[in-house]
């Protein structure tokens, strides 16, 4: 999960910034409404050249060897869901933001806000999960903070994780390097984290084989970068889903991004769950997926590298960058139709019937 993610505001100039007097849940949805919040309120106050790049991690200290710094908060409910829990999510989210920025994770800082009355066993379970995920990602939690708040509406635990990683000299992954002809690759089936959490939260009575894909991607990405050092750009499609990162990529590189629906891997159980909830699988969050952009000459090598790793067995090409300066993302559908792909707006609200 990336907190400071946004579209380039200028490309959306025709949409009036939504005036708001109070925070709505949808401001935290990771969609266009989150962009409005950041662009109108946060960035004007905190902006600087690193923050305004709005990448998954800020790159600092270029003169002494570039470092990537990232921070995320986790408020997921329920705390435990099929395939993961808030602890695993916190480590994976932060490690993945570093990895897709081209950085090797060096250490993670962890802040916990605990609610009065939280059973010790729950906290221990979350901490065990943090330890396991950190071991998987080959990173340590090197500092932390704990606060306790009064019993309220809170779910029990909120986590904030910050991570720092080293970027090798000469590497700079940035959407501005994307060119027509570049190939978009994803490392596996999409939509599973968001759907697993939504089902666990909203329809606990529904039994599903769906599991969150939450996984640290540092190993997979490390392997890819060793074999294909000239990866152009990467991003993890968390909140806002594949639609969010693909539309964002198009807007920020300025080229037309074409996705091929029939190539986008989605498991049948995810497709059915999304249908039941009335959601577009492209809009749904992932926590163990990465969208990789490579030059056409690197396509085969990148696929081979990704497929050599357990988290990339199902890697495939899902689209291309086209020679058209409209900055839009378009989906070529299975019936031979076309439609545009936009960043989702706010909260994902399941439909009525």
């Amino acid at each position: 999960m990336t907190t400071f993610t946004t579209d380039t505001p200028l490309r959306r100039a025709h949409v009036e910034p939504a005036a708001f007097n109070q925070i709505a849940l949808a401001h935290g949805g990771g969609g266009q409404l989150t962009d409005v919040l950041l662009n109108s309120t946060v960035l004007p106050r905190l902006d600087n050249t690193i923050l305004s790049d709005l990448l998954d991690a800020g790159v600092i200290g270029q003169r002494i060897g570039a470092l990537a710094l990232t921070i995320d908060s986790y408020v997921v409910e329920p705390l435990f869901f099929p395939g993961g829990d808030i602890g695993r999510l916190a480590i994976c989210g932060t490690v993945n933001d570093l990895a897709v920025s081209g950085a090797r994770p060096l250490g993670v800082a962890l802040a916990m806000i605990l609610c009065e009355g939280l059973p010790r066993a729950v906290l221990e379970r979350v901490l065990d999960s943090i330890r396991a995920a950190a071991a998987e990602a080959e990173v340590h939690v090197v500092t932390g903070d704990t606060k306790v708040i009064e019993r309220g509406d809170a779910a029990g635990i909120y986590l904030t994780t910050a991570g720092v990683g080293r970027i090798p000299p000469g590497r700079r992954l940035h959407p501005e390097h994307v060119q027509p002809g570049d190939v978009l690759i994803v490392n596996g089936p999409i939509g599973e984290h968001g759907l697993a959490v939504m089902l666990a939260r909203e329809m606990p009575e529904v039994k599903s084989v769906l599991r969150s894909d939450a996984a640290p991607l540092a190993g997979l990405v490390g392997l890819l970068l060793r074999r294909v050092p000239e990866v152009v750009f990467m991003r993890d499609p968390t909140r806002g889903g594949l639609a969010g990162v693909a539309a964002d990529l198009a807007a920020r590189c300025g080229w037309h991004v074409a996705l091929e629906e029939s190539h986008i891997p989605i498991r049948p159980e995810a497709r059915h769950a999304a249908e039941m909830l009335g959601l577009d699988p492209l809009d749904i969050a992932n926590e163990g997926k990465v969208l990789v952009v490579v030059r056409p000459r690197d396509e085969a090598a990148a696929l081979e590298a990704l497929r050599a790793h357990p988290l990339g067995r199902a890697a495939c090409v899902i689209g291309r960058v086209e020679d058209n300066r409209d900055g839009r993302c378009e989906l070529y559908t299975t019936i031979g139709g076309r439609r545009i792909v936009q960043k989702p707006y706010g909260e994902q609200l399941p439909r009525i019937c």
Partner: protein
Amino acid sequence: MNPPEHDVRKSLERLAAATKGGRELAFMEVCGTHTTAAFRCGLPSVLPRHVKLISGPGCPVCVTAQQDIDLLVEAAGRQGVTLCTYGDMIRVPGRRGSLQEARGRGARVHVVYSAMDAVALAQAHVDRQVVFAAVGFETTAPATAAAVQAARRRGLTNFTVLNSHKRIVPAMQALLERGAKMKDGLGIDGFVCPGHVSVIIGARAYLPLARDYAAPCVISGFEPWQMISALARLAELAQSGRAEVINEYPEVVSPDGNRAAQKLLDEVFQPAETRWRGLGLIAQSAWVLRPAWREFDAQVRFGLTPPEDCEPKACLCGKVISGLALPTDCSLFGRSCTPLQPVGPCMVSSEGTCAAWFKYSWRQAPHRPLPILAGASP
């Protein structure tokens, strides 16, 4: 599920053949899920030039009258009330803001996924009055009926419903009766009938439309190839002047529908006149609580009276859901009305026509939207 390609191609060929050389045909779907499915798969971009697919009053959020929205917001503001609603409703702006804004002001508004969730909430919080915002067609109305019955069985005195359940067939009938014309003069040449609703009401429910108004009706599933096949069938019927009801979704839709659900509906509800957004009053188009269940009517419990119905100025939602206007005909579309700041419900609901246009087919600057309905997409 990826469609078997030959089905899509074959159906498109049938559709093209049926419309070749003939007049322009306009078919209406009356189901929010069809609206979304059509736009999501880029259906408008593959239709022959002569075929238009119009979205009718099928989105439950969109057809809810403004006064009913205002009533929900008022109920949510009452002391001790917890209002339970399906997701999409919370963002529809009323005259005094939306339920979401009411929640921001401190009102207790819960998003639920079934009416029974609201009953469970009432049982768990006997100190709160739980009001369930009952919206939707025959798909959700039986669940409300079951919830009301469960509340009585459990002796709950803190559960009520603010009911605006609707019946789809009377609305389709009203559109035909009023001779609804799209702005370019096209009438409705047939209906793509809703898959989910038809499961409950059965295929026979559409017979009066075919018999009395000569409107062909084809019941369709939600896969793109099923919708294309339904359109091809409709085009064939329309060209040959045959008004029939054809069930192309027999896996789940039977001629008589779900008898158990119908019995549940009949026990708790009775048909009555009600107001629809854009369509005004339509006889027999509501499911209202029978007198025996009045104790569960939130309007009675809290003495709520619907305010005057007053739709947002310049908002064309009413015309859009009647098939009389396209979203892009609305002066607000993409300017002051966006999914971020919706003015009308069609931009709020994920199944709303305006939201689907905005999300899936809005290629150009809002001032020059591409006409995509007639398959004019490049």
